[in-house]
């Protein structure tokens, strides 16, 4: 708890002394946190690997592009989230019957389809191929994003601790058995896919002002689909903190590597990811129990005692 408070104070006071660029980097990192945590909440537990985050981020970006002159910013965030929620409900009802790789491919296709559809519509209706987003000052964006992160993480924390978190996990464990234990698997999948998409859509709205100019290729960039997945795997998905840690480290690395290596930064990324998958299959947070038991072995017997108990049981 104390640690969390420190983090909050750090973010809250950041705009007082930091450069504008750094504030934007921190805002982007917080956006990644929301994307990674919401992706892991659904895909990490159920095993339904969604490549759709970009679709919902894009919907959020376009929501603010269209509404920025008519509605206040916080209202647009809520609307962006709701649009993504409803859209994900519809998509989920159609696609969540698909299992394994078919679901993944469909969600990938969804991003491509939405990109084309939105481009077609904006050309037809608005005769334009892109939009300028009215800038919002860095501190406001950061604080808005901080609120969104806190809401997202709290909601997902309570979902995962609730019976519905258990239902999502059981779908990942064995969907057929889950159905026979009284779990309405279709309803559970569709609803929580929509909840996870809602946060992604809201994050898309906050992302937009820093992009300054957007078009369909920027808003629906598949980058926003792959990043949350990489971050969640990198951080580890066994615990809520995994995707958060992954998003913070990866988001920071992305920005630094991008400025130093330019377009080669993906290469550095790739190497790090391969190394993680090879050596840390449970992600960064997978290291914690290992470290604990090693330290515990050196210092005290508390760690050992627990292990001994477990062995006695098996």
């Amino acid at each position, binding site marked *: 708890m104390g640690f969390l408070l420190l983090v909050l104070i750090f973010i809250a006071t950041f705009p007082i002394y930091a450069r504008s660029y750094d504030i934007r980097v921190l805002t982007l990192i917080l956006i990644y946190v929301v994307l990674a945590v919401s992706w892991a909440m659904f895909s990490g537990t159920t095993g339904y690997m969604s490549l759709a985050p970009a679709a919902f981020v894009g919907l959020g970006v376009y929501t603010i592009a269209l509404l920025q002159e008519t509605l206040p910013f916080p209202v647009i965030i809520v609307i962006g989230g709701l649009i993504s929620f409803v859209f994900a409900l519809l998509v989920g009802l159609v696609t969540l019957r698909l299992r394994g790789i078919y679901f993944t491919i469909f969600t990938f296709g969804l991003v491509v389809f939405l990109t084309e559809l939105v481009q077609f519509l904006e050309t037809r209706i608005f005769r334009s191929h892109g939009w300028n987003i009215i800038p919002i000052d860095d501190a406001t964006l950061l604080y808005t994003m901080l609120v969104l992160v806190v809401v997202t993480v709290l909601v997902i924390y309570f979902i995962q601790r609730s019976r519905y978190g258990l239902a999502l996990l059981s779908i990942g*464990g064995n969907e*057929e058995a889950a159905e*026979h234990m*009284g779990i309405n698997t279709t309803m559970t999948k569709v609803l929580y896919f929509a909840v996870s998409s809602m946060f992604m859509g809201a994050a898309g709205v906050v992302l937009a002002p820093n992009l300054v100019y957007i078009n369909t290729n920027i808003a629906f960039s598949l980058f926003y689909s792959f990043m949350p997945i990489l971050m969640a795997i990198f951080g580890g998905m066994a615990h809520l903190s995994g995707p958060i840690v992954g998003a913070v480290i990866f988001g920071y690395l992305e920005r630094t590597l991008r400025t130093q290596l330019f377009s080669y930064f993906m290469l550095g990324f790739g190497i790090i990811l391969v190394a993680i998958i090879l050596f840390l299959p449970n992600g960064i947070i997978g290291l914690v129990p290992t470290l604990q038991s090693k330290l515990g072995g050196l210092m005290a017997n508390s760690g050992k005692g627990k292990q001994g108990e477990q062995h006695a049981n098996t």
Partner: protein
Amino acid sequence: MPILEGQGVTKLFGGLAAVSNVDFRVEQGEILGLIGPNGAGKTTLFNLISAAFPTSSGEIRFNGQRISGLKPHQICRMGVGRTFQETKVFSNMPVLQNVLTGAFFGTPTRVSGADAIGEAAKALEFVGLSAMSATAINDLTLVNQKRVEVARALATKPELLLLDELMAGLNPTEVGEAMELVTKIRDTGITIFMVEHVMKAIMGICERIIVLHHGEKIAEGKPKEIASNKQVIEVYLGEGAHAGS
């Protein structure tokens, strides 16, 4: 009124009738066995009752109410629990959480968190696995994973329990313990319908037995009658007698 009743139950896979026009009745409080050679349609019949597959034709009634056409989770909540031939435990959670899923979702009314944990602990104690509630499910032996499946089904508070080859792959001591467990479950008032290959177990604890062959019911009766039924001996016990003992 029988607790479970099927009339003309049929399942076609393409042109093949996996279950063909089967009538059956499960009486309240009995242990009913379902036997037959491999591919006879035993597990398919269980899958039709629990709605893993839709029936092609025919009707299944639970407590007089038609259940064909319902979804698996609805049938579970009405009071039909089941286990699986190939164990289907939730490999991504510890033992207690496996059983908790049944306690939380398997009953028609909403259960509070504390009550669900209580029910799950009770079910685990019933099958003798209390000491392992925090253990990772993959660290359990096959026999214990099967017991977790039984506990998980019991946590849904079933009136009828479908046990699909509970004893397959167990050694003789474990089979004996499993037979005791099944009798103990029945003594709590739960009706049992079980598919089994282990003849000793079937003959020892079932009050009645139904025999399937090529998807059709070829015999039904008390264990003694089944053991002396010529057709059954021909299709099943002839080869099963060697394999089973």
